[in-house]
């Protein structure tokens, strides 16, 4: 298991340009390598390009293999957005993913900090107990969660969709690792200055692990944004659907109208792609940092 310092080093290294030693100009192998990698990369995004291209085509044209639509149209988008369901699902997903992310990041950081910086009996037991929940697959819990939601009247509510994710063992572990890099002297100095333990956590320790918090936030947000099986189980009314569940329902409805299905798929994809293109470096860094937790 790599430690936190290693993770930071590698995450930083990703941002730096590749060392000069590789830049042998006119090396035919290097040129071939670049061409093949570029071709592979273009091939990787072709499916997405075709999705967007088809969403701009008229029904009679979707059989055409050309990427550029002959007569581009936004009619599909107008049709799909007309009844307002996509806005609703988008908003639901946004609210649920945001609230869950904020909650999980704060609680995971608090628990990670407590398990890292406090000395008390039972600390290891709590840590191992939380860590052991990583082994339990969500699929094993969905049935009991469903029963719980049913008993408490949480079916078909935002809270019902969110409650399983408001804290994560993964984030707790990640944050505990990162708080190791915060020197105890800083916390001790704050203690002498008369800050209470909550203030020390919030005002002294938290600002020092901001990159880790951002990385965890990206990871948790992505997970919640694309979550499918639990929202599918816990929601019944279309007003409560998240974007993935809504898209499934919508696509099943359209059955053979692939240009409309592609429009729906594009609507679900484009916002994340835009966000990715703007914050590319930041997101890749975050995913590496969070991904290499252990």
């Amino acid at each position, binding site marked *: 298991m790599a430690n936190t310092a*290693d993770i930071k*080093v590698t995450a930083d*290294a990703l941002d730096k*340009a*590749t060392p000069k030693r590789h*830049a042998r100009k006119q090396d035919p192998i*290097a040129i071939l390598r670049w061409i*093949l*990698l*570029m071709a592979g990369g273009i091939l*990787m*995004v072709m*499916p*997405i390009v075709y*999705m967007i291209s*088809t969403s701009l085509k008229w029904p009679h044209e979707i059989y055409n*293999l050309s990427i550029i639509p002959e007569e581009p149209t936004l009619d599909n988008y107008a049709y799909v957005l007309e009844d307002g369901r996509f806005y609703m699902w988008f908003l639901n997903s946004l609210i649920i993913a945001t609230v869950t992310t904020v909650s999980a990041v704060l*609680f995971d950081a*608090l*628990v990670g*900090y*407590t398990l890292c910086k*406090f000395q*008390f*009996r039972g*600390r290891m037991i*709590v840590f191992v107990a939380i860590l052991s*929940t990583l*082994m*339990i*697959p969500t*699929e*094993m*819990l*969905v*049935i*009991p*969660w469903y*029963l719980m939601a049913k008993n408490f009247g949480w079916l078909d509510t935002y809270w019902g969709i969110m409650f399983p994710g408001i*804290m994560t063992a993964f984030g*707790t572990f990640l944050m505990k690792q990162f708080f190791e890099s915060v020197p105890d002297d800083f916390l001790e100095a704050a*203690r002498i200055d008369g800050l209470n*333990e*909550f203030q020390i*956590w919030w005002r002294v320790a938290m600002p020092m692990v901001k990159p880790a918090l951002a990385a965890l936030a990206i990871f948790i947000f992505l997970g919640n*944004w694309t979550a499918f*099986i639990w929202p599918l189980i816990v929601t019944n009314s279309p007003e409560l659907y998240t*974007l*993935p569940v809504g898209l*499934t329902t919508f696509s099943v409805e359209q059955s053979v109208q692939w240009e409309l*299905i592609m429009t*729906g*798929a594009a609507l*679900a*994809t484009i916002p994340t792609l835009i966000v*990715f293109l703007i914050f590319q470096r930041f997101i*890749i860094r975050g*995913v590496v940092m969070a*991904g*290499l937790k252990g």
Partner: protein
Amino acid sequence: MGWYANLTIKQKQVVWAWTFLSLPILFYCVIRFYPTLNAITLSFQDWNLLGDRTWNGLDNYGKLFADPVFWKVFKNTFVYLLLGTPVSLVFSFIVAYHLDKVRFMHGTIRALYFLPFMTSTVAMAWLWRWFYQPVPIGLFNNALASVGIPQFPFLSSTTWALPSILAPAVWAGLGFQIIIFMAGLRAIPQTYYEAARIDGVGPWTILWRITLPLLKPTIVFLVVLSSIGFLRIFDQVFNMTSNNPGGPLNSTKPLVLMIYETAFDSFDMGYAAAQTVVLFIILLAVSLAQLYIMRDK
């Protein structure tokens, strides 16, 4: 707060620690541990959600192991794993290995490979489902037809449906594995390579004797992570076979889809719980086996 003022600094810290942990401990008990025990208990009971929960011993497990559909599903689940993990790891390693040596437009190429990881699984499942449609709708078959190759039965064939569903799952995951591999490659100290080059060691030997052994922690991490992912495959299958879930003829049905159908279509909660316990055991066994095989010798 008189009692608090009288505590030593150590004691105050203990009070704070348990205060911070109180809500989380409640959460992990109620939302993680209790449901786990509940699922295990339920797997020894018979319950259709409306009537009474009655104990039926090992009946659910007996029924499961006697069910030919379960064995079919069991096999499918492992085919997803055994095809998906090696294919995606080999591809992502090759790309990462070469991309690591490229400077010109490095960030752009990396972004191209990473882009599919940022998409919604459900949207991509429907996109690929369109690709796989027969002539004159599907992109792949149209492309084949345009060069005179007969149609390929992608999703309608019991042989090819599973790999067809697996393809977008592998595709979407590549970007993540590539950047993790690249981070691993960057963490290998340059001095090893320099020493090897001075000794006149060829690139293949460097790859097999230096790069791959030193990359082992990264490889173990990705193998375990992607195995767990493929063993739990659901979203793609559910969306790409929604007219006949897990079809044709259960040839693509993974364990999680069987669990979903048993619990939320048939409402056979005890039987579904038994299936989840089996899934849990499989995941645990596969993770432990891999960690054992790949352990440091």
